[in-house]
């Protein structure tokens, strides 16, 4: 778990009186900087291929270009939720229990929600063009929406308060349960009457350059995902440490109540 995941200062989980993280500790390492650049380049390529090099679609015209954002973002959202689930399991499993897993889960869920949001928006825009409607009660659309809400709920549960361990346990359980909704979304198309595209890609119904562009998008988004998660996870580490330092201050204040001067109820 530790290693490149932890922040540059190699700060432990959440130690009592941790080394002051207040001196604007950057959340980036040489590695993550390189990663960030790579992601940028990847997105650059995606723009080039997606907007210029890849051909129009016979039926959909240039609307098809939305796919290069829509599909990768959807798949990355799946990946993100998967990571959240796995690291939650890792937390719940006694031998690997560490708050670092919990923070990774949280970070990944946040990014996942972001990507799912992109899927929803790009999807409905695409829908406006091809189905001439932003939204319809197609199975995949709905299940996607529910998945989106579920993880918003997950994030809400994360800041219910309580100690870090309580937060971790609680949300880990939810994450594992929520993870099982993902296949529901994926297979929804084959289970309900689909209006939405079904496994277009897996069944290789795509022209070569389109497919390639899609994969460019996939790579770029993956790099972006890893980069975002790295940073969020480090930020969350720092936040937990700031909590602890805030607690130190609060404790000091609380102990002052014992000084006779301020007696009474407070």
């Amino acid at each position: 778990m530790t290693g490149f995941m932890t922040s540059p200062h190699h700060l432990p989980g959440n130690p009592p009186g941790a080394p002051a993280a207040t001196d604007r500790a950057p959340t980036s390492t040489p590695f993550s900087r390189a990663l960030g650049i790579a992601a940028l380049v990847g997105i650059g390529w995606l723009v080039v291929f997606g907007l210029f090099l890849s051909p129009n679609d016979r039926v959909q015209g240039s609307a098809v270009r939305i796919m290069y954002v829509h599909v990768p973002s959807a798949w990355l959202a799946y990946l993100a939720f998967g990571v959240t689930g796995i690291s939650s399991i890792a937390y719940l499993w006694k031998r690997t229990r560490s708050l670092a897993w919990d923070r990774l889960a949280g970070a990944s869920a946040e990014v996942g929600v972001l990507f799912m949001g992109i899927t929803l928006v790009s999807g409905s825009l695409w829908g406006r063009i091809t189905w001439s409607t932003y939204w319809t009660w197609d199975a995949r659309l709905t299940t996607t929406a529910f998945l989106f809400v579920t993880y918003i709920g997950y994030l809400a549960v994360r800041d219910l308060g309580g100690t870090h361990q309580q937060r971790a346990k609680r949300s880990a359980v939810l994450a594992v349960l929520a993870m099982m909704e993902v296949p529901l979304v994926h297979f929804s198309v084959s289970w309900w009457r689909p209006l939405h595209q079904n496994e277009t890609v897996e069944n290789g119904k795509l022209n070569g350059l389109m497919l390639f562009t899609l994969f460019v998008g996939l790579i770029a988004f993956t790099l972006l995902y890893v980069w975002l998660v790295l940073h969020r996870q480090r930020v969350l580490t720092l936040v937990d440490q700031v909590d602890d330092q805030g607690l130190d201050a609060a404790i000091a204040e609380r102990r002052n109540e014992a000084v006779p001067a301020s007696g009474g109820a407070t």
Partner: protein
Amino acid sequence: MSTWRIVRLVAAKDLRVEWRSRVVVNQVLPFAALVMVLFAFALDNDKVLTRVAPGLVWLATMFSLLLIVQRSFAVEAADGALDALQVAGVRPGGIFLGKAIALAAQLAVLELVLLGAAVVLYKTEIVAGGVVLLVATYLTATTGLAFVGTLYGGLTAGAKGRETLLPLLMFPVVAPVLIGATRATEAALGTEQATPSDGWPWIGLLALFAVVFGAGGTLAFGSLIDE
């Protein structure tokens, strides 16, 4: 004390609370029934009604579920009983199963009433061929809903202000049950030429759902309820 004794104990307690207070019977039942009536009002059009009847029945069930779950844990939270249960060393798994069973029992009664209402208000016919499927749907769906309800009810019961999360957490998760149960019921009732055979796959989904949340709840309830 064996987990099963605890399960029985907790379930019996919840049912006794209901027996003494009659909240579900006097409040939730009429509510659910009125929901059905109001649906009928809101879309007064027989053709539409019979078509969507199965969906509406399950929708009404879910609103009632929300109320029953809130009630079931309000009772625990009101005077610190949930804490007391934990201090008494009652295994959380036991609490979970016990409350889920009581919840399922109340839900089952409620669903029968709603189905009856559907038959009366929406002129839904129950075809002999579909009865088995219908029963299967009700069993699996009810169990699933009871488990989910108890799980999230417990999670949101703890500290104050939490209960505000219940609908947000619960609805997206029970939505699959709503869908599955609706389709299965449609198949059982032969709505839109659906045939029972179309229904059975859904039962699978519902059963899976019930198993997952049953297991998850039994194992994890402890860490969910202690804030």
